[in-house]
Structures are given as C-alpha cells and as structure tokens.
C-alpha cells in the first residue's frame, strides 16, 4: 500500500490500539475494506465526509436494523459504492461465548467487509459495510446462528442494560433478564417502525447508572431500594484503619448529611430517612456499606440527546416499583405510553418533547399515574393553574 494513505498511516503510530491497523487487516481479505481506507484518507485530505444517506435497504419483513450507506465518489471507490451497516442485537450485558463470536465472524467474513464495531454506541454489534445484494443472505446466515437485528429508525431501539447481578454486588434489579424479557416481548416494535420517532429503553442496576439510562433512554429503569443501607461496622473500621478518612471522604461528601462518624465508638451512623441512595458511601467502601434488601426500581421517562428540541434527563415517573418477571406492570405501562405518544406525537417528536408540549399532567392522566412530590424538584411558582 506504501504511501497511498499517509495520513491514515500516521494513525497507526502511538500507544493506543489503532483502528487503521484493523482496517488494513480486513483489507488483506476484503477489497471493500481497502477502499474504505482510501475513502478515509480522502476525508482527511478534504475535511468532509464522503458518505451519502438513504435509499431503501433492508431485509424482508424488517423496517430497521440496516443503515443504508452509499459513497459520494463511487467511481473512485467501487467496492464501497454501497456499504450498508447491520445493527445486530447483542446478548444482555454483552456476554459472549467465543463460539458465538466466532460464528458471527465467519458470517461477516463471508458477506461483508470483515469490519465491525464491538459495539456501536446503540449497544448493538455493528457489522460495517455490506453491498446491497448481500443483505438478505447475510441476514439469513445471522438468523441461522441465532442472531437477530437491532433497532433503527422510528422503532423501539435495542434495549440495553448494565452487567447487573451477573458481576456486580450493587445491582438491585436483574438488568440482564428485564432487558432480555422486554426485547423478546417487543420484537415487533423493535423491527417494524410505527411511531413518530425512536424510543429507547435502558436499565441500570443501581443509581451509578453505568449505561447512562437517565441520559440516553426514553424509558429509564434504575435499580434502587426502599429500606436502609446495610453497614458492616467492622469493615468500616478496617477501611478507617487502612487509612481512609471516613469523616472527610465519606461522611463529608454525603449530599444530605445522612451519615455521622462516631470517632469514639469508631462507628458509622446513618439517619435512614435522610439517605437519598446516591451510592457515594457504597462506592467508597464496597466491603462495608451495601444497598438495602428491599429491592426495586425507579422508573423515569424522557431522557434524550438534543435533537430536536434540546436534551433531557429522564424525569421520575414511578419512584419505586418491584421488578419481578414477567414484568407485567412495566409492559402494560409501556403499551400505554406508546399508545398515547403514537396518537398525539408529531413526526420526529420524542416522548419527552410531547410531554413538554402537552404537559406532564396530561401524560400522567393518560397513563393512569397519580402525581407524587418525588416527580418534581419543586412545585410550580407561577399562579397560572388550571382546574
């Protein structure tokens, strides 16, 4: 390849693993990966993208899961003239057997560019770059090894959840199971777009929110507990003796002053009614402080990125709900939300934007949830009240 791609080659240097190296690896077997390298070099030179959006691409029976992509310089780079992407639904928690991973590699080596994202920012496995004629056979092969497409367009997007009880002591809900269960229940909503715009579900096992559910999901599930923190005083003392400044770094950082350090008794005291379950003391002393035992979830609504009317963090909808299979209450709630949004939403209006336009009160009535103070930071200040 020599000096054809000097700027891309520059990105092979340096300690962080190089994606250019990976493109070159794929290019040894796939002409399309070789052309991709040249397209990228061209973009570095021109400082613009060389991809076009659009066209109807997909597989029979699906309205999403394939992103259509075409080169704007197809004559120069014919093997990426059409270079479509598959979103493949990952297993909950991104756990894999090597057998499954190798199967997916074999399929993609046969039908695509040999390049992937593990994973995309949606959470899906991304298979990057397939010509149009390979889409259906590639999908058939994926289905044959037990994989299915994720969401794209105005559908339920691929639900994601954190590692949860599989490998985290803080998880108050079974994130992997609730995500898998909802994904299986709503396959039709995931694959066949029918709504004003996209809808995302994410579940984090505790308020640390490792999958950014509160920022990224229209329907946010965050594990929490109703009873008191569990404190092992011997373990607290061990942390103190090990050099942790409990007074300053644990008690002093508690956002509600719910903790006290009794220096004499060497005991950490908690005023349970003041604890807002922020996780700080637990994060600092995982061996000594643990979530309570009355586990459940807080459900929040409306998190999204800026497009169209500005970014939102999700708003509290249900302060506490028990989250047990078959998750009937959650499923019924989702169906009510979708019906209301689908009925009233304008094109490209996310559920949060519709709530802003029509009012939280209207939304709560529609889904049959009674207002509680946990839903607001403070009540209204203005006197323009409707009765």
């Amino acid at each position: 390849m020599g000096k054809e791609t000097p700027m891309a080659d520059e990105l092979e240097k340096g300690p962080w693993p190089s994606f250019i190296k990976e493109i070159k690896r794929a290019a040894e077997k796939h002409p399309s990966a070789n052309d991709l390298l040249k397209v990228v070099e061209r973009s570095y030179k021109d400082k613009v993208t060389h991809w076009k959006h659009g066209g109807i691409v997909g597989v029979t029976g699906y309205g999403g899961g394939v992103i259509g992509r075409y080169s704007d310089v197809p004559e120069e780079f014919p093997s990426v003239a059409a270079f479509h992407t598959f979103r493949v639904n990952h297993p909950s928690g991104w756990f894999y057997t090597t057998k499954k991973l190798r199967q997916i590699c074999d399929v993609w080596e046969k039908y695509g560019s040999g390049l992937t994202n593990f994973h995309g920012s949606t959470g899906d496995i991304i298979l990057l770059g397939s010509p149009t004629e390979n889409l259906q056979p590639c999908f058939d092969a994926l289905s044959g090894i037990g994989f299915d497409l994720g969401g794209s367009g105005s559908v339920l997007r691929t639900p994601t959840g954190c590692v949860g009880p599989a490998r985290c002591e803080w998880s108050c809900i079974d994130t992997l199971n609730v995500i898998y269960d909802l994904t299986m229940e709503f396959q039709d909503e995931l694959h066949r777009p029918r709504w004003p715009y996209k809808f995302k579900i994410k579940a984090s096992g505790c308020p640390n929110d490792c999958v950014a559910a509160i920022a990224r999901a229209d329907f946010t599930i965050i594990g929490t507990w109703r009873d008191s923190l569990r404190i092992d005083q011997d373990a607290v003392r061990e942390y103190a003796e090990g050099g942790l400044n409990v007074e300053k770094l644990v008690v002093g950082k508690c956002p509600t002053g719910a903790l006290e350090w009794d220096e004499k008794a060497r005991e950490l005291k908690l005023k349970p009614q003041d604890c807002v379950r922020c996780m700080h003391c637990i994060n600092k002393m995982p061996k000594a402080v643990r979530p309570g035992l009355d586990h459940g979830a807080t459900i929040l609504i409306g998190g999204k990125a800026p497009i169209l009317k500005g970014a939102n963090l999700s708003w509290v909808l249900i302060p506490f709900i028990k989250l047990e299979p078959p998750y009937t209450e959650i499923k019924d709630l989702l169906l009510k939300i979708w019906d209301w949004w689908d009925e009233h939403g304008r094109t490209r209006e996310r559920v949060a934007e519709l709530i802003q336009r029509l009012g939280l009160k209207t939304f709560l009535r529609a889904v049959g949830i009674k207002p509680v103070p946990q839903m607001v930071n403070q009540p209204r200040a203005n006197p323009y009240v409707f009765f």
Partner: protein
Amino acid sequence: MSEELRQKILEYLATVSKAKNRDVARAVGEEKRLVDKAIAELSKEGKVEYIYLDTSYVKLKDKG
C-alpha cells in the same frame, strides 16, 4: 388477520407514496394496533416495505 383489512391497507397505500401506520389506521378506519399487526404481516410477506427519511414510513413494495 382479516383479509378485508389487509386489502384495505394495500388499497390505501396504492394511493400514497408513503405513510405512517397512524395515517393508515385513520384512512382505513380501524384500530391502530390491528393495523400495526396487519402491516407487520404484509411486510413479512414482502408486500410492503419501510423507508426512513426524517422518520420511518411504510409503503407498497417497489412503488416509486
């Protein structure tokens, strides 16, 4: 799924370039959830397909 509903949906889609399911439901005067189901069936049979512009729409397969 009633054959009549499927037929009504296909007839409506023949008159438009693309539509949201909600518009299809209004046009054929049927409950949205039933229309969603019928369109899903038609898509699996390859009779309708989806297009993504600013949002996703449904259309007759291969209709310009």
